[in-house]
């Protein structure tokens, strides 16, 4: 088991080395959305608050970093730090009233959509941030090839996965799960449910902001509709939910299935087949909801164990 895991890791890590340019690009996207999915999962899976406004933190991170680093010429580390700090402040400013007034379930989802939309409208309006023209970073990328970006995002993905796994096993992770399952029981066990949810929101937002910074550095162009858009939020959430929200692997597997589907269909069908990737994406979500409501990872696990049970049953 351990050996096969090591082999799998080795294959994944060496994959970028012998992939072509386009497939490296796909791999970067898979890892990026896997990474974002894991970050989203801290709030959406562990704490059970279905956020559909992840684009707010994604866009805020990307924009703040790009403007500080490229327009104001602040050093890299400082720009990243300040961008994450700003996103944390945003998360706290949104989280405190939202949890204070007890918004949960659909209401929470709708509030997060509203905040992300407000940000999108404001950025679209503000000339300082490029408004509808978007914000272009210098055309010269920091790294010459996609290989470096590939390894950076793999490193981010792995560290996020390890952090998530570590958090999940600790009491803080258990407490978040209990808050998700029944807030009153959690409070009756002495857990500050609001503070726990706020902490989860902050961790999730900071992670997503770093993903946004990576996105800015990789694509070198930001636009309010793509950075703050509802589609980004849905895409991030979809990777996690499709893969499964109760495990670390879920978002990664979800992204590994959904991203190539979406990108591949876009490339295969070409410009004439616009919208096909959306149809495939949508169908994947529908299939997941109807047949694997607790995620594809759980679904596969269940199918395998059922198969094994039958197999052994026949033996006996």
């Amino acid at each position, binding site marked *: 088991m351990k050996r096969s895991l090591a082999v799998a890791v080795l294959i994944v890590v060496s994959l970028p080395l012998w992939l072509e340019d386009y497939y490296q690009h796909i791999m970067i996207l898979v890892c990026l959305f896997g990474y974002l999915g894991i970050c989203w999962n801290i709030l959406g899976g562990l704490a059970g608050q279905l956020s559909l406004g992840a684009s707010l933190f994604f866009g805020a991170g990307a924009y703040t970093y790009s403007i500080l680093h490229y327009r104001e010429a602040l050093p890299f580390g400082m720009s990243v730090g300040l961008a994450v700090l700003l996103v944390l402040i945003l998360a706290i400013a949104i989280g405190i009233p939202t949890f204070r007034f007890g*918004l949960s379930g659909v209401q929470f989802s709708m509030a997060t959509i509203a905040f992300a*939309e407000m940000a999108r409208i404001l950025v679209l*309006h503000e000339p300082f941030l490029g408004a509808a023209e978007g914000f272009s970073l210098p055309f010269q990328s920091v790294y010459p090839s996609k290989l470096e970006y590939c390894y950076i995002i793999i490193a981010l993905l792995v560290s996020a996965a390890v952090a998530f796994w570590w958090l999940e096993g600790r009491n803080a992770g258990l407490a978040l799960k209990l808050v998700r399952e029944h807030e009153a029981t959690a409070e009756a066990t002495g857990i500050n449910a609001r503070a726990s949810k706020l902490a989860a929101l902050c961790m999730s937002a900071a992670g997503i902001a770093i993903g946004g910074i990576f996105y800015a550095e990789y694509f070198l162009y930001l636009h309010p509709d793509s950075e703050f858009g509802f589609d980004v939020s849905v895409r991030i959430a979809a990777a996690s939910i499709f893969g499964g929200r109760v495990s670390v692997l879920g978002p990664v597997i979800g992204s590994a299935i959904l991203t190539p589907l979406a990108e591949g269909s876009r490339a295969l069908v070409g410009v004439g087949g*616009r919208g096909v990737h959306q149809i495939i994406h949508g169908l994947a979500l529908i299939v997941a*909801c109807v047949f694997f409501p607790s995620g594809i990872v759980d679904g596969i696990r269940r199918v395998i164990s059922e198969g094994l049970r039958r197999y052994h049953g026949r033996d006996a």
Partner: protein
Amino acid sequence: MLAQALLSGLIMGGIYALVSIGLTLIFGVLKIVNFAHGDFVMLGMFLAYSCFRQWGLHPFNSALIAFPVFFVVGFLIERGLIEKTHRREQDIQIILTLGIAAVIQGLCTFLFTPAFRTVTVTGLAEVVSIGSLVISKAKLFGFLAAVLFTCLFVAILKFTSLGRAVRASADNPVGALLVGIDLPFVRSTAFALGIATVGMAGALVMPFLNVSPEVGALFTLRAFVIVVLGGMGSIQGTLAASLCIGLLESMGAALLSDSLKQLPIFFVFVVALYLRGSGDIDPEIKSYQPSALDLRR
């Protein structure tokens, strides 16, 4: 200037009412979180557009076609997909309807390209002037039709046995089952009715609004804002909220700037959500609420 903004706001509000009344039934009463709602409006608009281009059919006539077509589509979607999620937490339903929205949007992009489309109907193009105020004939007729159909809709809910069954099932599913209401059928029918109304609304707004596959999400968000603002399930509330949102949007466009006109709506939305939240942590409330009674054996 301000009076003009007020008038066009009210007119748009009336039209939003027709769009949102279906969601009041689906989300407010049946508790189905339908994030594909606006995409059905968009689909209705494209239906009217194609009918107009193919056969020169007047959009108002297409509205009459849209109603039965969307009724069947809605019924099948509820039966085939949404019903499967009733026993799960609401999150699953949100994702499912987002998936449906993506499919509809992708389908329309595939068939019609992402460009904006318009329909210009002769006879509806000119404007009607009331004193110094002007209003396009298309909008006026759209508004009147919206008011008419909204009244019809309310009458169905209030006075027919189907309406009573819907309200009973929403209020107490177990009780409804016990008195012999065919709950799955009522639920599907009510969902279909809601979808039929929005499909029709889409056809009605075609003479004066542009359509592209992207507009669906805007309608969805606006409709949710209105339903939440109107108190989730109250028809009078929805009507009042629609007018408020219409006014807010036109005033926002007049006072702020056109690019910021949506901002006040979302602001009011968040405030409304906060006011609805109690802040109490009630032990009786399950954190995952099956959206409706589980009917699977």
